[in-house]
């Protein structure tokens, strides 16, 4: 019986573990190893160079520029996305006219809103990026045409071709495609908060803005924190939007260069795989710091209800 049990365990685990070890674990470990070599990625001979790649990295202007952009993305994109997500889900769940004599209700047709808001979430980021590349096109794009159409010609921009606007244009796309997910996620959380809490607070004279900050947000905090980490990982990546949408890519004038794309160019265009993996390791470190910071800042007593 025991013997059979272990054979069964080994039989079931063997394939998944082997596959995972070859294609996921070993590349990650190799990446860290290669970051200490001068490997080009093209030939098979390379030697250990100690921390030279990391020295180069610390002095590389473009690297720091990319880090700056990633940090900006990391601050702005999750904040705006989660903020809008919370706002809209609160509107959906509490913004209703007090029908059926209940003090707090969802708006009429809230599931229709959720269905529509969720659209971008089922589309590939590649499709979304292309869609917005066309939308931003200064000549025949929807955005400038719309601004011109309502008489706001002064607001028309070159968008992705203007270094002052390019990164912000990307952020809009990242927010646009993710808000719906959080509206649905937070709505699920909000609908499990007992209505009595709101009713009691409203009877005690609280207004609805208060109920949001005093009831909804604290009770949803765990979910918000998870969302923050998810969004942080998306903001740190940004590979697809940069590679598909921007001029260069990474331009104009390196104004949209991010770590993820920098790794890619260093390997597949510059033939500097050693340096590329060092950038990748730096990215991993930023991710881990971010996760720790969110964990620390967000730590609160867990509320049971």
């Amino acid at each position, binding site marked *: 019986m025991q013997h059979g049990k272990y054979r069964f365990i080994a039989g079931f685990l063997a394939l998944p*573990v082997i596959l995972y070890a070859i294609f996921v674990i070993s590349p990650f470990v190799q990446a860290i190893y290669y970051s200490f070599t001068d490997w080009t990625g093209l030939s098979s001979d390379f030697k250990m160079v100690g921390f030279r790649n990391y020295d180069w990295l610390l002095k590389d202007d473009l690297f720091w520029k990319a880090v700056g952009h990633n940090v900006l993305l990391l601050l702005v994109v999750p904040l705006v996305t989660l903020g809008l997500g919370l706002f809209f889900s609160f509107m959906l769940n509490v913004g209703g006219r007090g029908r059926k004599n209940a003090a707090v209700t969802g708006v009429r047709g809230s599931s229709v809103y959720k269905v529509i808001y969720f659209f971008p979430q089922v589309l590939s980021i590649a499709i979304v990026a292309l869609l917005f590349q066309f939308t931003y096109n200064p000549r025949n794009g929807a955005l400038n045409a719309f601004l011109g159409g309502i008489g706001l010609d002064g607001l028309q921009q070159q968008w992705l071709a203007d270094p002052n606007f390019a990164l912000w244009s990307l952020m809009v796309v990242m927010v646009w495609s993710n808000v719906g997910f959080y509206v649905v996620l937070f709505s699920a959380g909000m609908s499990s908060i007992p209505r009595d809490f709101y009713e009691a607070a409203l009877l005690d004279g609280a207004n609805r803005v208060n109920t949001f900050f005093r009831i909804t947000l604290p009770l949803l905090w765990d979910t918000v924190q998870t969302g923050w980490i998810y969004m942080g990982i998306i903001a740190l990546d940004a590979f697809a939007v940069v590679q598909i949408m921007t001029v260069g890519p990474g331009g104009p004038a390196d104004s949209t260069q991010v770590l993820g794309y920098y790794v890619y160019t260093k390997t597949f265009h510059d033939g500097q795989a050693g340096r590329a993996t060092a950038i990748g390791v730096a990215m991993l470190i930023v991710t881990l710091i971010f996760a720790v910071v969110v964990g620390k800042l967000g730590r609160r007593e867990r509320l049971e209800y």
Partner: protein
Amino acid sequence: MTSQAEPSELPGVTKDDEPPLAAPAAKRPPRFTPEGRIGSEGKVLNVFSHGMLVIWGLLVTMPLLWAVMSSLKTDKEIFTSPWGLPSALHFDNWSRAWSKSNIGDFFFNTVLVVGCSLVGTMLLGAMAAYVLARFEFPGKRVVYFMFVGGMSFPIILALVPLFFVMKNMSLLNTFHGLILVYIAYSLPFTVFFLTSFFKTLPTSVAEAALIDGASHTRTFFQVMLPMAKPGLISVGIFNFLGQWNQYMLPTVLNTDEDKRVLTQGLVQLAASQQYKGDWSALFAGLVLAMLPVLAAYIVFQRQVQTGLTAGALK
């Protein structure tokens, strides 16, 4: 659209399909509360919230509708009046994109790759998760954390060495290579999700099957998998969308022109067609790639929403 979404709130219509993970929105009986202050504030808020909700609804749908509209126009119309309605519905753009721009080929490549990967992911993921959830053995925690740890690492870091791992195994630019990679990178979330799902299932049924003489393998396939169906559906939807929409992995690992999947094919099409000026075929390609997924989502909206958010609610 209203008629599609509203019935799903009625108990008994779609509740059967709903996985038990989703916290069911408690329907409370109407209760009596004092009217007055609360009511009037509620009305102002109601107008305000509908206003804001409609604005975001428009912001989401407008770019999509604009793309559909543009895909039915001539190139000249796209340039002269970006927001104008097409003078005639040029469905020939769609057929041109499907056959001449190879969207059809990309589509079938994607179906092949995602179909095989999905089956593989679900099978291997469920097998590993079941063992990790239900059996005690040395090294169990190490294996579990090895899988789950993969969720938080940036894939781009592994991508450079992965490219050369694939090259050495002659797996670059092959469908089976891409399928193996898709499976491997889908395992962390699948194992994480299904392990906790298998833990919530009662043990008594499986024990009864074992006592009746069924082997562990048979118990897994004939007893546990059917019991785990709601969890398998959730994670299956999650993986399907993740793999169907995957862009970075095929871009790096699958550069053969004939083997492109939909996402990368579209991006490369965009790069070439913009020079040729065939914008209408480009929009048509984009719409052709978008519509099947959106249509499937509208049909299975409830399952898709729970499937994608289930992982974050844990």
